[in-house]
């Protein structure tokens, strides 16, 4: 049970790029927005730099396809740019931006038709298979993508917002327009599915 052993020892690894808002970030965002609205297009590059990677991570985890994720990112940052005059300073820019991102991901997912189902192989088999060249980091990431792709999109979205973006339920509710209790249920169901999946394969 190599996989199990690995993540038990990894439990103490610190999280990468966690956290949502620091006061400094907020005032930077607001200042940059003001500059863009005053005509400084390059100030928008600062905003993009600050959020692109984080948004990319969400888009890739959510959509499972790099091209789709790129489309989502382009559309998100373009829309955000066009709608910048509607951004209110009292709201968090990241939350405002993520609302657009989540919606873009939904649109793109909806537009995808006839996608082949991700061929899922059991982790146990994968561990023994020769490493395949992917544009992503490694086989762990590929496993994670496949596992996430198995989740129903709304469950996946809630799971990602909660555990990857580490938002509070209130923030998620504001973003998605869905009630807190419904979101809690979705996250729980996502975890249940993942757990069930583990139960299924661990005995192989």
């Amino acid at each position, binding site marked *: 049970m190599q996989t199990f052993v690995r993540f038990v020892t990894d439990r103490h690894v610190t999280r990468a790029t966690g956290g949502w808002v620091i006061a400094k970030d907020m005032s930077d965002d607001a200042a940059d927005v003001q500059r863009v609205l005053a005509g400084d297009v390059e100030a928008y590059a600062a905003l993009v730099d600050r959020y692109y990677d984080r948004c990319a991570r969400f888009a890739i985890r959510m959509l499972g396809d790099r091209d789709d994720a790129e489309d989502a990112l382009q559309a998100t940052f373009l829309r955000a740019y*066009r*709608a910048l005059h509607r951004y209110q300073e009292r*709201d968090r820019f990241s939350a*405002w931006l993520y*609302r657009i991102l989540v919606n873009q991901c939904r649109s793109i997912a909806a537009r995808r038709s006839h996608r082949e189902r991700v061929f899922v192989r059991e982790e146990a088999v994968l561990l023994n298979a020769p490493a395949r060249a992917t544009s992503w980091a490694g086989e762990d990431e590929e496993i994670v993508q496949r596992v996430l792709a198995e989740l129903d999109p709304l469950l996946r979205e809630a799971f990602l917002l909660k555990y990857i973006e580490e938002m509070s339920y209130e923030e998620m509710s*504001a973003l998605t327009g869905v009630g807190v209790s419904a979101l809690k249920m979705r996250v729980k169901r996502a975890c249940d599915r993942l757990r069930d999946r583990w139960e299924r394969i661990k005995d192989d």
Partner: protein
Amino acid sequence: MTHTPWRRRAASLASASALAVLCAVSVRGQDPDPLGRLDPNSRFAIELIMDSASTAGLPTRPLMSKVLEGISRKADGRRIVAVVRTDFGYLKTARATLGGVSEEELAAAAAVLEAGAKPSQLAAFRVRQRGRSDLEAFTDWADLLTRGVPRDDASSAITKLWQDGADDATFHNLWKSVQSDILQGLNPGTALQNRVRETPGGPTPRKVKPPEGQQENQSSR
């Protein structure tokens, strides 16, 4: 209000009071930020929908009107969002079905869909008739559906009238008489069939074949 030299006093007095009423009722947008009355969640959701609408070249005025209606009705923010989202959907479908029509006609067509017509039934109106506005036809159609006239009956009646070049007055009178019958208790589908038969130059009733060469209707209204 200052007087301008060319007004007579008597008229100006009467005008002033009339003006006061009219100005009071015609000033729009007294609230500079009506969306501010929504909770932040709903506000954001609606702003996104508005953005999608204007990006798609769809009118946002009807959507904004729905928001204001919902606020005035003291509806829950999420309900308002749902209504706006639904409306947006119908506007999109109407646009996809009809192509480029005026804002008003688009909103009226969306109402026809919302009332229950199928997009394929709306598609017959895609072929534009020169200089004609379908506002009256769509409005009456949506009303008939809302009052319970069976979907296909309403669609074929309105479509046939339109294809035969019926004018706004014909549509309006048909609507008026059907409405009156329904209010008096007649079954909506029956009411429509009765009045359709009577309408001069109107469509052939579904179950009766007109004799060759004869005028459809002799009776006057």
